[in-house]
C-alpha cells in the first residue's frame, strides 16, 4: 500500500493513473477543481480497490492556499510516498498573443502553480528522505513553436525546474520524474483530429506507473516520442524558424 497524492485528479491521464493505483490497493488523496467530479471519482476508486480515498477542491493559481492543502493531504494519508502533479490547461495560443493577461493566467496555472506545489512538496520529502515527485510536463517544452509557445514556455519551466530539483534531491533519496506525454485523446484535445500518433489515457497511465516503479528520471509516453523530439530538437534554428510547426 502506498500513500499517493494526485493533483489535477480529474484530468483524463490522472484519472486513468489513479485507477491503476486503486487496483493495487493504495491510499489516495485527490485535489481537483470540481467537487462533484471528485466525489464521483472517489467513489469509483474505492470500488476499484483503493484502501481509502479523500479529496479536496483546489485552484492551481491560489498559491497562498497550497501549504494548507498539502497539510490536509499529509494528514489524511498519514504521510506521503508519491505525489503526481497532473493539472493543466491547453491555452488558446492566439488569445495569449493578443493579451498578456491571458498569457499570464495560463503561465500561472501551467507553470507557477506547479512550481509552488513542487517547492512545498520537495521540502517535505527532502526532510523525510524518501518519496517520488511525478510531474506531467510536455514535449511542447522541448522547443518553442509558433502554434503553442505559451504552453511550451510554461512546460519548459516545469521541465527545467524538475531537472534542478532532481539534481538537488538526489542525495536525499527523493525521486523526481518528469513525464512528457505526446498526443493523448482526452477532453483537453477533443477538438483535434486523431491520427496514428495519438494515444489513449490508459496507455499513458500504464507508462506512468511503470516509470515511477523503475525510478526513471524522465520519460516520453508513448516512448516513440523520444525519437520524434530528438529530431525536432536538432533541427538548426535557421531552418526551424521557417517551418510551420
Amino acid at each position: 500500500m502506498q500513500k499517493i497524492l494526485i493533483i489535477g485528479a480529474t484530468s483524463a491521464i490522472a484519472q486513468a493513473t489513479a485507477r491503476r493505483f486503486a487496483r493495487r490497493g493504495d491510499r489516495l488523496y485527490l485535489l481537483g477543481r470540481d467537487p462533484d467530479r471528485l466525489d464521483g471519482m472517489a467513489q469509483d476508486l474505492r470500488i476499484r480497490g483503493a484502501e481509502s480515498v479523500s479529496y479536496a477542491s483546489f485552484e492551481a493559481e491560489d498559491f497562498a492556499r497550497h501549504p494548507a492543502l498539502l497539510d490536509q493531504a499529509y494528514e489524511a494519508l498519514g504521510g506521503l510516498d508519491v505525489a503526481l502533479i497532473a493539472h493543466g490547461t491547453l491555452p488558446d495560443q492566439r488569445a495569449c498573443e493578443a493579451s498578456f493577461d491571458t498569457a499570464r493566467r495560463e503561465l500561472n496555472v501551467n507553470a507557477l502553480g506547479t512550481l509552488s506545489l513542487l517547492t512545498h512538496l520537495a521540502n517535505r520529502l527532502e526532510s523525510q528522505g524518501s518519496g517520488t515527485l511525478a510531474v506531467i510536463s510536455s514535449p511542447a517544452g522541448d522547443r518553442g513553436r509558433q502554434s503553442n509557445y505559451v504552453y511550451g514556455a510554461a512546460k519548459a519551466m516545469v521541465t527545467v525546474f524538475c531537472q534542478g530539483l532532481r539534481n538537488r534531491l538526489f542525495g536525499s533519496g527523493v525521486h523526481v520524474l518528469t513525464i512528457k506525454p505526446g498526443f493523448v485523446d482526452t477532453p483537453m484535445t477533443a477538438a483535434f483530429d486523431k491520427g496514428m500518433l495519438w494515444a489513449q489515457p490508459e496507455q499513458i497511465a500504464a507508462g506512468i506507473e511503470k516509470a515511477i516503479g523503475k525510478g526513471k528520471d524522465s520519460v516520453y509516453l508513448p516512448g516513440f516520442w523520444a525519437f520524434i523530439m530528438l529530431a525536432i530538437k536538432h533541427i538548426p534554428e535557421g531552418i526551424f524558424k521557417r517551418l510551420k510547426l
Partner: protein
Amino acid sequence: MRLTGWGRKPVVDADMLAPRSISEVQIRCRQTPFRGIPRGNGRSYGDSALAPRVLSSRRLDRFLAFDAETGVLRCEAGVLLADILDVSVPRGWFLPATPGTKLISVGGAIASDVHGKSHHLEGCFSRHLERFSLMLADGETLECSRTQHADLFRATCGGMGLTGFILEASLRLKPIRSAYLRETTFKAENLDHALSLFSEHAGAPYSVAWIDCLATGPRLGRSLLMTGDFIDDGRLRAPVKSPLSVPFDVPGFALNRYSVAAFNALYYHRVRTAQRERMVHFDPFFYPLDGIGHWNRIYGKSGFTQYQFVVPREAGHGGIGAVLKRIVASKRGSFLAVLKTFGPANDNPLSFPMEGYTLALDFKLEPGLLPFLEELDRIVLDHGGRIYLTKDVRMSGDTFRAGYPRWEAFQELRRKYGADTTFRSLQSERLGL
C-alpha cells in the same frame, strides 16, 4: 471521425459526442436535440452502432456502488465487462451471463441483450439486470425496471440502442469461490453426436461446441464440446499477462479454403482422447479471443461478418444440418463455427435467443458472399429461426420481420416515446425500423 463496427465494414465518417458525465449528456442533449445512435465500445460486428452522429458512452466509465455482500453493482453505461470482472472476481463475484468478449460496455450488453455459454440455465444479460436509467429523445431521463416503465425496460433490453441512451444500470452478479473452472472436452463424431452430448450435459453450468464446418458426409458437424464449472478452491486472484496483438492486416490470399480446412482439422485433432479434463482460468475459458488484440485484422482490409442464427429445438438437427451442408457445398470456410444451446426465450421484443440451437460462423466479406448468406437466411427462416442483430450487417427488412414477429410492438413503443425519429442507426434504416 472514421468509425466502423468490429467487422470493419462499412466505414462511416461520423460526428462523435463523448460526454464525460451523466449531467453533461443531459445538458448537451437538451441544448441540441440528438439524432443518431448510442455507441459503446464498438464491438458489435455490423452497422448497429453506426450513424452519421453517434453518442458514445466511452467516457461514462465510473462505478457508482458495489455491495460485496449481495453482489449488486451499479455503474455508468460505458464501464466494460472487463472492468467489472477486475473489481468483482477478487471479491468472489462473476457475471451470470457473459458473451465471448469482455471488451463490451454495460450499455452495449443491455442493448444487445447478450447471451453466453450459460444461456440454457441463466438466460440473457437482462435477466440479471435490476434497473437502468434511460435518456429519452427529449432529453428527459426515466428509471426503467420490471416494475417501473416495464415496457421500456423490455424494449431497451435487446433494443439495439433504438429506444434511448442508457446512462447507468444496476446488475446482480453471481457468487464464485474460485477464478478457475473445471473444463471437460468431449469429442463429437458428427452433428447427431454433438446434439446428444449437449442434452446429456444439459446440467453443466457452461457449454459450447466448436464445429469443424468443413468436415463432410458422415463426419458432418464433427466438433469439440466443452463444458465448464467453477471450482471451489478459493483462488480468486487472477494471473496477469500481457496480451498479444495482430499487428497488421493479413493479406487476403492467406485466408483460403486450404488454410481454413487445415486449421479446422488441426483444431479438431488437438484433443486426442474422447474426453479430456483440465483446470482453466476463467479468462481463456470465456474470452479466448480477447487475449489477441485486433484479431479482426486476420480477415484483411475487406472486413468480415459473423453469421449467427438460432433455430427452435425441434428444428435443431434439420436446421443446423442444412446450413452446414450448404456451407460445405459452397466451399466457403469459416475458421471456427460455434454451436450452443439456448434455454427459453424472454419477453423482450427484439431479444435474440429462443429455446433451441444457435450457430455462429465468421465469413470474410467478398464478392458473392451476400447472395450466399441470403440462401442461408431462407434455410433459417424455413426452420422457424432468426438472425442475431448484433452481428448483422446485411439482412433484409423481410428477413428481419419474419424472424422477429414482435417488431411491430417494438416500433409502436418507439413511437410512443418519440424514439423512432431520434435514435436511428444504419442498421435500423436498412431494416425499416
